[in-house]
């Protein structure tokens, strides 16, 4: 991908706009799959149409845990992409 650095200004802008679009799409998909995951794990009964306190807590913790997990994975992933050594 070194070729990209030699591109003229308008091409860099086009590239930046493509990256932007991918990031927005990706974060919207991530939002949807986070809801799906935490809903599937936490909601088991359908006797009422509102979440009870326990379900709400479960969904919040699930989503928070997933976001923290995702940040940690992202740090490790970046290290591996750059070939840094990691502790055992």
């Amino acid at each position, binding site marked *: 991908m070194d070729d990209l650095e030699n591109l003229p200004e*308008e091409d860099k802008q*086009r590239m930046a*706009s493509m990256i932007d*679009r991918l990031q*927005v*799409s990706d974060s*919207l*998909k991530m*939002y*949807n*799959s*986070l*809801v*799906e995951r*935490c*809903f*599937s794990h*936490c*909601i088991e009964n*359908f*006797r*009422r*149409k*509102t*979440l009870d306190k326990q*379900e*709400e807590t479960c*969904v*919040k913790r699930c*989503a*928070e845990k997933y*976001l923290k997990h995702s940040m940690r994975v992202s740090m490790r992933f970046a290290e591996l992409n750059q070939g840094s050594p990691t502790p055992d």
Partner: protein
Amino acid sequence: MSGGLRTADGLPVEKEQIFRMAQQEMEYRVDLFNKLTQTCFEKCIERKYKESDLNVGENSCIDRCVAKYWQCTGIVGTMLGSSKPGGM
């Protein structure tokens, strides 16, 4: 087609962005609807398939499942810093 910044496709930047955002919002809604439909099918529909109609229990389960899923979308959206529940 006169004046102002233009994208690689020759459209004014602002209008192009409106199209892009509209498309991303629609893709987001389709994805949300599909995940919601699949998840509530798993949660509510009996696996025996004894008949092809939905029975009373399944129907009320679906209504509550959709309502609870929607609330989860709101909770996670708030955590991610989204302005309106279920929206972008």
